[in-house]
């Protein structure tokens, strides 16, 4: 087996240089964007913590996949074309992981910290999870392993996916050429994903290829008349990286351990979408969208919003 390098670690100098260039662009008005010292450091601390957690606990995820490797149906080897197919299939795997990470609170608890900044700049890309090795999301990679893609190979190509996703965390780039916006995930598409405007909630889950969102009905375009507001629906009041990493786990544990709940209600606090509550006192994304349409009936049926007032479904853009 080839000795695959850790792509994301090798990219660290590029990440730093790119952040510095973006800062200069913002300072001298070459591109749109905003930085805040504490926010940037919280994001970088989350990135460092993610690397540390990968070094210390990465063996858990890798060990699970290696265990499954013995049950593989094929062994596709390490040819370049195998890597290309692995990249595409892993990008599809990432789409579903990401969709679950926004629609199942157990996974959201791990992923929310990436969305917890109210800024959107390249440092936000590094605001990564510390708890990803403990959620079981690694099981989504098992089908690839069983198909014959070696875990080390899929980890290697996933590194390129993550590096690709770095540059799209910026306001400095408006729109890319039309053909590129049609196929690839771009800063514009990903700004939508990080926005809390009701129409933009739960949209654009893509890693590298935006075609998955277009295929599965979750694509919403960025509208000039509704600029993205970044962050989460209930923004956090801290820059402390430990609180950033753990706040939703704490909130979920508190909710699920309230007195007087049935076992089913406790489980729903772990498995239902963020915002679900047993007494209906909170709002999920679909309720927030429906509320928005109720207040703005003229927006009904537009991408990301329900067709009629009260309908809690989603309308795909295309």
């Amino acid at each position, binding site marked *: 087996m080839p000795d695959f390098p850790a792509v994301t670690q090798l990219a660290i*100098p590029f990440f730093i240089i790119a952040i510095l260039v973006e800062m*200069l662009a913002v300072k001298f008005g070459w591109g749109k964007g905003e930085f805040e010292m504490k926010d940037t450091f919280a994001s970088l601390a989350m990135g460092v913590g993610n*690397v540390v957690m990968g070094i210390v606990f990465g063996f858990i995820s890798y060990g699970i996949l290696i265990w499954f490797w013995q049950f593989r149906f094929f062994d596709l080897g390490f040819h370049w074309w195998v890597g290309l197919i692995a990249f595409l299939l892993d990008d599809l795997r990432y789409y579903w992981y990401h969709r679950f990470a926004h629609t199942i609170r157990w996974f959201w608890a791990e992923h929310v910290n990436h969305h917890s900044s109210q800024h959107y700049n390249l440092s936000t890309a590094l605001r990564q999870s510390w708890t990803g090795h403990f959620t079981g999301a690694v099981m989504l990679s098992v089908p690839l392993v069983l198909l014959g893609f070696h875990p080390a190979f899929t980890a290697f190509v996933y590194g390129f996916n993550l590096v690709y996703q770095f540059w799209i965390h910026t306001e400095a780039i408006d729109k890319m050429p039309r053909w590129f916006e049609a196929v690839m995930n771009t800063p514009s598409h990903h700004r939508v994903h990080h926005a809390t405007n009701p129409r933009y909630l739960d949209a654009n889950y893509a890693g590298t290829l935006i075609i998955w969102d277009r295929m599965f009905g979750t694509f919403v375009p960025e509208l000039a008349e509704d600029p993205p507001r970044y962050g989460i629906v209930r923004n*956090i009041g801290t820059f402390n990286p430990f609180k950033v990493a753990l706040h939703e786990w704490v909130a979920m544990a508190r909710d699920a351990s309230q007195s007087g709940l049935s076992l089913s209600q406790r489980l729903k606090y772990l498995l239902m979408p963020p915002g679900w509550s047993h007494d209906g006192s909170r709002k999920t994304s679909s309720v927030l969208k429906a509320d928005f349409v109720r207040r703005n009936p003229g927006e009904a049926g537009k991408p990301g919003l329900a067709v009629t007032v009260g309908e809690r479904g989603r309308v795909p853009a295309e």
Partner: protein
Amino acid sequence: MPLTILVPMILVGLALVAVAIHLLGLSKDVFISTISDAIRLLETDFPDAIVEEAILASNGKAAILKLEDGSAGLVEAMGDRYVTRVVARNDVRQVERKGDCELVLRLADFTLPRLILNFTEPKAALKAATWLTGNQNA
């Protein structure tokens, strides 16, 4: 990658970013200057909230709002952004008055557990405490 390379690389990177932010002066603090700003900020996050009254903290970094449904709204400036909350009575762990014009607010909120609110006059502090606790003698 060996830790002997990875760790220095990260440290140098962090230092460069710190120096750049400082030299470029990119950070700025925001303030809540007017009552209508406070209401607008709360209503952006809670569009169904109906604000009856609001008081600004004397340093312009926070505001407390009385809502029609009996709960209280909070807006806090955090760096160059704002954090908003609608707090019901059971979200408030303690409201402690310090001196005539200061309130120390403790919330059942993991990321915003404590808020210090200074007001220009004792009457405002008393009013804010009443909105938060419902207790006229707070």
